[in-house]
């Protein structure tokens, strides 16, 4: 056992763990959180449009706009992430000035995640009891008030759990982005594990990713459950 720890492989692995991991973990977290944030900024209004614009619902939006929106969302959702990353290189360069590095990977991540968010928001908002929306209308609520004061607040627990789902998915994508230019734990796993056969380092990176997913997931679930006032007997 002592021999194993003294071995060169382990020593270099520990070295890398100490020198490179803290930064990689930090990069992974901030890329994930920022990308999710921007994906929500774009995806939430689109999801709202998809539901509120439907016939007989709150907003009057021409059918063709919803149709095009649906096609764009489906299109983006069907492109595998790595290919999407390459496809959006020009856009990434335009926005960030470069296509490599951690910040640059935010652009493709946002583009991959916002259609996902739009769909999830759509499904969350659909759960809102239509009778409650009608009640708000019967009290003189404007379309904007219905969206902001009824649809979104009433689906908060579901929205939070979908945000959690988005975060964990984006975390996975961000690791994948390590293959072509992205930073963080994914890059370490690929650089050391795939190119230099240092499986121990790769294993550590994977374990870190698993732990991050677990943390995000359990925190998200807890907040979602806590926020839900439909559950009885909670003070």
């Amino acid at each position, binding site marked *: 056992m002592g021999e194993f720890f003294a071995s060169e492989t382990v020593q270099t692995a520990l070295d890398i763990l100490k020198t490179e991991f803290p930064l990689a973990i930090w990069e992974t977290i901030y890329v994930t959180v920022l990308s999710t944030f921007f994906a929500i900024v774009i995806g939430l209004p689109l999801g709202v449009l998809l539901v509120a614009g439907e016939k007989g619902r709150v907003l009057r939006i021409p059918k063709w706009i919803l149709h095009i929106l649906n096609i764009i969302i489906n299109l983006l959702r069907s492109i595998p992430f790595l290919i999407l990353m390459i496809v959006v290189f020009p856009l990434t360069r335009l926005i960030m000035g470069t296509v490599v590095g951690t910040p640059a990977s935010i652009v493709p991540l946002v583009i991959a995640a916002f259609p996902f968010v739009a769909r999830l928001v759509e499904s969350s908002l659909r759960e809102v*009891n239509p*009778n*409650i929306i*009608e*009640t*708000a*209308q*019967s*009290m*003189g*609520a*404007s379309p904007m*008030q219905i969206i902001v*004061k*009824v649809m979104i*607040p*009433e689906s*908060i*627990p579901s929205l939070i759990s979908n945000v959690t789902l988005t975060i964990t998915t984006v975390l996975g994508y961000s690791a994948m982005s390590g293959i072509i230019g992205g930073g963080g734990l994914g890059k370490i796993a690929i650089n050391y594990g795939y190119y230099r056969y240092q499986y121990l380092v790769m294993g550590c990176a994977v374990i870190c990713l698993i732990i991050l997913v677990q943390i995000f997931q359990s925190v998200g679930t807890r907040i979602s459950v806590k*926020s*839900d*006032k*439909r*559950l*009885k*007997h*909670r003070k």
Partner: protein
Amino acid sequence: MIEIQNLSKTFPVSGGTVEALKDISLTIPDGEIYGIIGMSGAGKSTLVRCINMLERPTSGKVIIDGKDLGSLTQAQLREERRNITMIFQGFNLLMQRNCLKNVCFPLELAGCKKKEAVERATELLELVGLGDKLKSYPAQLSGGQQQRVAIARALATHPKILLCDEATSALDPQTTQSILSLIKDLHDKLGLTVIVITHQMSVVEQICTRVAILNHGSVVEEGVVSEVFASPESEEAKQLVYPEGYQQAIETEREEHLIRVVFNGASATQTPLIAKMAMEENIIASILFASTRSIGDKAYGNMLLGISGGKEQIEKAIAYLRRIPDIHAEEVTRDHG
């Protein structure tokens, strides 16, 4: 005053249309508790939703205090809806807001200041008897309590008209009673015009002053509740007024003559009517069917009495019964059921 003029509503459905309302004209004076009753699918909800334009009539008008609602812009209509509020069978509270915030909701919509809204909401929740539940969430309340919150919420914007669509249908009989008396109380206190949609005659009996009977989208009978209740004209009205088993009792072949007695709030519970009639008038009556209930100390419902003896006995009995206040009696002739 609410004037409904030649209102029709047709829904397009796959493979044709459904005529939910056909040429309905009604006038509902201010301060009335007006019942609209009908079987399931009669078009009651559609009618009440047309009154506040949640549903646009296909043709016809809804005029409230001289204002034709159909001619208002969306913004004007939203303004007007603060005067015509509604409560529902399913309560439809915002589940993620506590009671206080639920009642504040329409005030927020109206752009009321937060402090004032909270004050008004607290006051209203106290008025409906939920002063201790301000911070509770709807899921923590019983159905009856939720409906009280919904009533408080409906009253927040000082409406003139309260529409109740099957407001008590999801509640047990006792809770129904308490909600109905609350609505009656509020009507008396605030001078509201209340429209009560229901499929239960008992609800109409208890609080309404006038009633319209809706059947397949048409008004088949309209009038003062006691009159409609005492002598229903239309088949539909009879079906609603006479409880199950009544028709059967009538149709059974018998020697006796039949008298239908309607208790319309008579304080008859203390005095055993049949026994008294036997003692005072020497008329022997058998109860063939009875469906009465006491609300407070008043009796409501129907009774079918069989009286043996000739024509004379019947007339004596009817005359006796009619002398009692709030009781209506008539002979039932078999052929017209």
